[in-house]
């Protein structure tokens, strides 16, 4: 069958090629003169010359801006022609099995146009590169143009890869385990990349000795997945022996935790939620997402996930499927997704490529891929991305962090998790392929230089439009009461989803009924595949026709793969033959509790990880700089500077509910503290507030205080825009190193203790959480590269009236600026990191926030902004940028105090007429009048006068 090859090129210079050129220059390919990127399409089938011409013009190109060259693929001949060319040609195509939605659309659309001879299609990219040596061209291909994990590339013309057609495979392997020695057990775990330790392997062996047979590969893989850190959170449930206690600098005894802690989740996180017992929490920790009350009609759900390991090796696909995954978590509680959040941590963007550990992608490439992945999924599925953060630290070079959050809304009382015997096991959505195998166990391992190659199959590319179909079907099916249980297919695939739903009632499943992308999958691969965009539902047989009709309307596939039995056993078959038969009790309760030790040292030893140097300035000479230079350097510091370039490529307006947008102010270029949403279709004036708190710099020093500080930050941000402090719930996301090291476990334990104390201090319950451990990279140099201990707190709050929301931009000259809370001069964290005492959260903070909230409710506050990195000076500067107005601050404010990072502080702009009412609300709480808004666009601070135009330029990089 001939393969038709189409090369589509722009007739004028195009932005995509320009983007590649600038990326290549940034990576150090200075000799590169030009680079042109073209699209490649391969179509296999019988087509006449006229037909292929029509396909080229009507389907594959835009005749106004592009031209097409088509030919029959003949690689040898064309590459012989190319060998003497002056420009180098690099062609890139997807590896077999990698999702290629465009190729699928080409086949479908060609048939719609009447070209029935078209059989298969594939896509690729072609680059014409000028000005590089052969060796450099190869380096460019590896570093920028192709990612080995999902693509292959050649110099010259490439052969496309169509999904491999192999023999259908019903092969089931028996893994002899009964007689294995301890070492052999560990080898088996390693060979199958199961990430199980000896105690766990021994438990499996004991189970099979008891039932006197060996496991099938399907069973072993199922156990490995069910018992993976990702799925069962064994570190957070471990029995922790706290081995050491220490004294603080001034000789005081540190708060002593008990000598053993039985489960971090129970002891600290759930315990806090239970003690707070907020009546508006509908579901915490038990379901796919946490759920709280919204109004009489609706409940809202919130979940944040990490997708770190996949994003490290394939940034676009990793982030893409991270977003897709957390959206399914929200769908899994029968809610309609209405907002996305993302917090991203990367290595320094200006890192010298030669300093990268082997096998690690450049942080710049990771960032552009991750951001593009978030953009692609969120925008296409139509969910506004409204809140987030981007942080840089050398510690994230090999282990970027990608936190994806999603908020959902659902009518009350419509979400059920109660499958009945006789209900069918229904898979909705995408087909199953070999993609994402062992993702659950992969994410639980330390990566090494080979991880990218070995775990290529763990990464998938998302298909947001298929998931949009799932939203359309499931929200309607929910309203019609068509299902009795629902869960998403995430890590562990059907094994995890169906296994979890059947964990009480039992199920009998036929794997041959699962629809595949291509044949050739072994039964364990079908069962464990993490192919995206799938949900599993329990549906009574009588409701199936109605569900099928919905699926037909919204182009969503429905597959019946078995039945919930009621006998409590999980049975999986392939072609009728049993390939898995496990007792639920063993599968779900049989994992031995992990025993870990923790060493707590306070403060933590300061690691070598520093902030990226303040924009070209030497932190050693920081103290000698004039105030103005310090402030401008801070505003242009990557961690503080405007993130507009990223924010604007996310759609933050779709669904029409974004009341406080991520960028705000006169020119919409100042950073909002939090997002406010008024969900479409809700009555009344209520809205949702979303914010976050994160500070790895504190994490390096003192995990306990860091946890308190970031809880405070998340709440402070939410309160600043108008959230009711009594109606905020939070999520925890822990990203840590290897918990088997006692110091790492010690800091994790301290962070959990901080979470507990912080939640109780503010009366703010946790409703869900997630951990991503083993964020370490074993370099080819033999050294471990670990991330800073990183805790993300995501907050969701309620604002009673969205029209009372407050933004951070200064509003009117003559208004008075107040400092809520107290900055502490000296001894606190400062930007050069020289004095590294992590600030405490003042005991007055909760009362101060309540007072501020009352003031906002009464309409007394014209603008409000929280103090975070860079302290008062940066907060004041950002408010000036927002309003394009000046501020005159008290001359008595010490320069040092202006940079101090303290918790519990906000700036509030109050009209003179409202001052006395405002002050009355604060009574004895710390409150200080610190200045006034002036029409002259100048920030007068610490004896200096800094034009707002200079602040804007430093913050945005633009005039």
């Amino acid at each position, binding site marked *: 069958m001939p393969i038709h090859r189409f090369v589509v090129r722009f007739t004028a210079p195009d932005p995509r090629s320009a983007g590649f050129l600038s990326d290549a220059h940034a990576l150090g390919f200075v000799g590169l003169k030009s680079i042109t990127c073209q699209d490649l399409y391969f179509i296999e089938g019988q087509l006449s010359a006229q037909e292929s011409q029509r396909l080229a013009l009507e389907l594959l190109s835009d005749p106004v801006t592009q031209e097409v060259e088509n030919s029959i693929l003949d690689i040898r001949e064309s590459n012989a022609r190319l060998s003497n060319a002056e420009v180098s040609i690099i062609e890139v195509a997807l590896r077999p099995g990698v999702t290629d*939605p465009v190729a699928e659309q080409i086949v479908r659309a060609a048939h719609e146009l009447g070209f029935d001879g078209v059989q298969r299609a594939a896509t690729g990219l072609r680059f014409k590169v000028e000005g590089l040596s052969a060796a450099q061209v190869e380096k460019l291909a590896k570093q920028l143009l192709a990612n080995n994990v999902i693509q292959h590339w050649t110099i010259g013309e490439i052969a496309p890869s169509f999904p491999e057609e192999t023999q259908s495979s019903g092969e089931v392997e028996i893994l002899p385990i009964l007689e294995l020695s301890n070492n052999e057990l560990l080898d088996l775990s390693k060979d199958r990349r199961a990430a199980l330790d000896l105690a766990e392997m021994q438990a499996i062996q004991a189970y099979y000795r008891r039932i006197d047979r060996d496991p099938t590969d399907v069973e072993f893989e199922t156990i490995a997945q069910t018992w993976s850190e990702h799925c069962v959170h064994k570190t957070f449930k471990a029995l922790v022996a706290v081995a050491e206690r220490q004294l603080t600098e001034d000789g005081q005894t540190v708060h002593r935790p008990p000598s053993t802690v039985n489960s971090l989740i129970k002891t600290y996180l759930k315990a806090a939620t239970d003690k707070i017992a907020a009546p508006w929490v509908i579901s915490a920790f038990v379901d796919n997402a946490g759920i709280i009350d919204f109004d009489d009609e609706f409940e809202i759900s919130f979940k944040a996930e990490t997708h770190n390991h996949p994003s490290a090796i394939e940034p676009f696909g990793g982030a893409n499927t991270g977003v897709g995954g957390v959206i399914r978590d929200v769908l899994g509680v029968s809610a309609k997704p209405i907002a996305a959040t993302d917090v991203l941590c990367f290595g320094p963007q200006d890192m010298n490529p030669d300093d990268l550990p082997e096998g690690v992608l450049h942080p710049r490439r990771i960032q552009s891929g991750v951001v593009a992945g978030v953009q692609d999924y969120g925008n296409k599925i139509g969910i506004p991305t409204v809140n987030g953060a981007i942080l840089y630290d050398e510690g994230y070079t090999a282990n970027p962090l990608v936190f994806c959050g999603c908020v959902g809304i659902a009518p009350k009382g419509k979400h059920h998790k109660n499958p009945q015997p006789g209900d069918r096991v229904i898979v909705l959505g995408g087909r199953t392929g070999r993609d994402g195998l062992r993702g659950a166990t992969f994410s639980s391992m330390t990566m090494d230089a080979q991880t990218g190659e070995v775990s290529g199959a763990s990464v998938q590319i998302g298909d947001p439009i298929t998931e949009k179909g799932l939203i359309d079907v499931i929200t309607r099916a929910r309203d019609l009461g068509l299902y009795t249980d629902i869960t998403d297919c995430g890590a562990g695939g059907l094994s995890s989803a169906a296994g979890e739903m059947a964990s009480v009632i039992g199920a009998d499943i036929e794997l041959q009924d699962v629809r595949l992308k291509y044949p050739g999958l072994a039964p364990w691969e079908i069962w464990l595949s993490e192919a995206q965009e799938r949900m599993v539902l329990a549906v009574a047989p009588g409701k199936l026709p109605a569900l099928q009709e919905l699926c037909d309307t919204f182009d969503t596939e429905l597959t019946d793969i078995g039945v919930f039995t009621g006998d409590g056993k999980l049975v999986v078959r392939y072609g009728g033959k049993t390939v898995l038969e496990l007792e639920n009790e063993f599968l779900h309760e049989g994992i031995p509790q992990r025993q870990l030790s923790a060493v707590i040292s306070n403060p933590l030893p300061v690691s070598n990880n520093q902030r990226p140097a303040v924009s070209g300035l030497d932190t050693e000479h920081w103290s000698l700089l004039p105030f103005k230079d310090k402030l401008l350097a801070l505003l242009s510091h990557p961690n503080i500077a405007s993130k507009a370039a990223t924010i604007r490529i996310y759609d933050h307006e779709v669904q*029409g509910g974004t009341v406080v947008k991520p960028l705000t102010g006169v020119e919409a270029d100042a950073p909002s503290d939090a997002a406010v949403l008024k969900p479409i279709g809700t009555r009344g004036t209520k809205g949702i507030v979303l914010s976050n708190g994160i500070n790895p710099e504190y994490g390096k020093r003192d995990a306990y205080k860091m946890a308190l500080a970031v809880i405070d930050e998340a709440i402070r941000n939410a309160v600043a825009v108008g959230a009711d402090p009594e109606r905020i719930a939070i999520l925890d996301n822990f990203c840590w190193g290897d918990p088997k090291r006692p110091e790492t476990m010690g800091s994790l334990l301290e962070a959990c203790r901080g979470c507990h104390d912080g939640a109780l201090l503010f009366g703010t319950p946790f409703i869900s959480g997630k951990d991503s451990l083993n964020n370490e990279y074993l370099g080819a140099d033999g050294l471990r590269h670990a991330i800073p201990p990183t805790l993300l707190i995501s907050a969701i709050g309620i604002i009673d009236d969205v029209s009372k929301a407050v933004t951070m931009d200064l509003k009117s000259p003559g208004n008075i600026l107040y400092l809520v809370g107290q900055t502490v001069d000296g001894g606190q964290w400062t930007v050069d990191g020289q004095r590294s005492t992590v600030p405490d959260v003042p005991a007055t903070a909760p009362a101060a926030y309540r007072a501020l909230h009352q003031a906002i409710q009464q309409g007394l506050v014209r603008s409000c902004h929280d103090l975070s990195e860079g302290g008062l000076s940066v907060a004041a500067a950002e408010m000036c940028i927002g309003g394009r107005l000046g501020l005159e601050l008290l001359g008595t404010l010490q320069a040092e105090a202006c940079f101090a990072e303290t918790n519990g502080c906000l700036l509030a702009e109050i009209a003179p007429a409202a001052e006395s009412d405002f002050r009355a609300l604060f009574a004895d709480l710390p409150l200080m009048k610190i200045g006034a808004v002036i029409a002259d666009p100048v920030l007068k601070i610490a004896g200096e006068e800094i034009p707002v135009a200079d602040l804007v330029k430093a913050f945005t990089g633009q005039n």
Partner: protein
Amino acid sequence: MNPTVLILQAHGTNRDLDVAEALTLAGAAPVFAPLNDLRAGKKHFSDYQMLILPGGFSYADALGAGKLLALDLNSYFNEEIATFVAAGKPVIGICNGFQALVKSGILPGGNWGVVNGNLSTTLTFNQQGHFECRWVNLQPISQKCIWTQGLDEIITCPVSHGEGNFQTNHQLLITNLVSSDQIALTYTHPDGSPANGDYPANPNGSLLDIAGICNPAGNVLGLMPHPENHIHPWQHPRHTRGESGQSGLVLFENGVKYAARL
């Protein structure tokens, strides 16, 4: 009776609820019609007084934004839509809907829309090279277009697209669009002066700052920006500064009023 509006839901449409809200506020009765229901004959274009193609990412923008939806329109609904348009009923395509109207040849229509069998206009990749979400200012121009007739105040609303750059390979087409009053909306600076191609006032590099065009008869409007996302006071990006206006609503009110008179 409120005019009935058919809201076309393609595979990947995502601003369908947004436009439904706008149309309801403007006094219409919206009805959602998944493309498959129309194909299956469960719903018919002719039963409705208005047609709206909302924004989104039909078919994930594969092979160019709006292209595959345009193919569907031509393959399955060619005659029905032609009849609907010829009857003078109001049609509006927003963002992805606009892209589909252009790539199916329904817009700009007239003499120079198709030359030698090939489309002569397109909405191609933004000049900045990426998707962009930001608020823009629009000047209503066409007095022929039933959606913009009688409007002269600036409309403020967001754009949210990666392929909104209006281009043609035929100079005569542009002359023709101007002379036949088919340029419905253009991008301006906040003070109402023409953007003259300045980024970000003109967010995508469109020729003549074109944000929206209509067909020669004036009943079919296509535009890239999202007036449906500025129908409530609190949607305005500076509502905390006392600015608002719900200025996106007037377009829908115009369309609905026109449909009610038909």
